[in-house]
């Protein structure tokens, strides 16, 4: 009787081991479950109207934390204007979050750089929601499903953004669940 118990235990252990090996050998398919849902926020735009991130669900969002005095941010912004122009009709929405201490320099900057996307005034709380914005620029790419698919710290080549945007835009809308 004892040998039957031992044999059963060994057989069960073998089955578990084989199953584990199969699981680890299976190809890893990236899904929205591998990503974090972009924290929602409501912040005032330069014209005073509120902007709520979740109202852009269904679009690909490029979320840029920046400041007017930040040189790498200034380098990136013309590229974002161009990307918005080029891919806006396909569902891209660039949103800028200014980390300036006040909105005074942001309005003139907005005009000077011909920015064609909404800019809101960020807060420390918004920064903390996104894991701490302790350097600029920091840019997040959010898919149509509202999940964060990429985070870029520092000035990033426009071609990198374009590649990622095209890939996210290609995601069919029906897979984007609220």
């Amino acid at each position: 009787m004892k040998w039957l118990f031992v044999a059963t235990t060994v057989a069960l252990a073998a089955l578990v081991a084989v199953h584990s090996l199969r699981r680890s050998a299976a190809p890893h398919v990236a899904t929205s479950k591998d990503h974090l849902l972009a924290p929602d926020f409501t912040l005032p735009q330069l014209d005073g109207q509120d902007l709520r991130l979740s109202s852009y669900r269904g679009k690909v969002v490029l979320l840029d934390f920046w400041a007017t005095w930040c040189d790498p941010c200034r380098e990136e912004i013309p590229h974002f204007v161009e990307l918005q122009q080029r891919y806006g009709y396909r569902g891209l929405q660039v949103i800028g979050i200014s980390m300036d201490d006040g909105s005074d320099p942001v309005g003139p900057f907005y005009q000077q750089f011909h920015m064609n996307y909404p800019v809101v005034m960020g807060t420390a709380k918004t920064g903390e929601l996104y894991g701490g914005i302790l350097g600029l620029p920091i840019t997040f790419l959010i898919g149509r499903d509202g999940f964060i698919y990429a985070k870029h710290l520092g000035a990033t080549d426009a071609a990198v953004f374009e590649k990622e945007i095209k890939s996210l835009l290609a995601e069919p809308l029906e897979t984007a669940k609220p």
Partner: protein
Amino acid sequence: MRIATRSATSALIFVALAILSIAQAAGQASSIPTPRLINPEDLVKLLQTSGKEKPLMIQVGSHVLFTQAHIPGSEYIGPASREPGLQQLRKRVESLPRTKFVVLYCGCCPWSHCPNVKPADDALHAMGFTNVKVLYISDNFGTNWVDKGYPVAKGE
């Protein structure tokens, strides 16, 4: 004649751009001489060593960044790349002895792109301060200070 005029115009544009680049570089952190820099690990050691003179630490970047994380005991002044920030900095230190140990830091951007520490350093030297160090933050405050586990405070 037309070719000569075009060449002269091109040369003028080139010279203007070169001057602009030099002027821009002059305002950047990379042009601060190495002896005036202090590394994060050295500052941490200094702050943790009892009996040593503790510096006045001033953050010359963004308030939103400062509120999220800053060096405990440091003070927020504002972006020194802007005149209001510089004025605030001068006002803060004007009554201090010129031998006062001051550490300036920002961490907003990669070192070569930081627009704030160089004007702040220049301003203090122009006022006659002789013991000023600038915290060398190669990437940003998050990567080179917070992520290293160095002491951090939050809030105003």
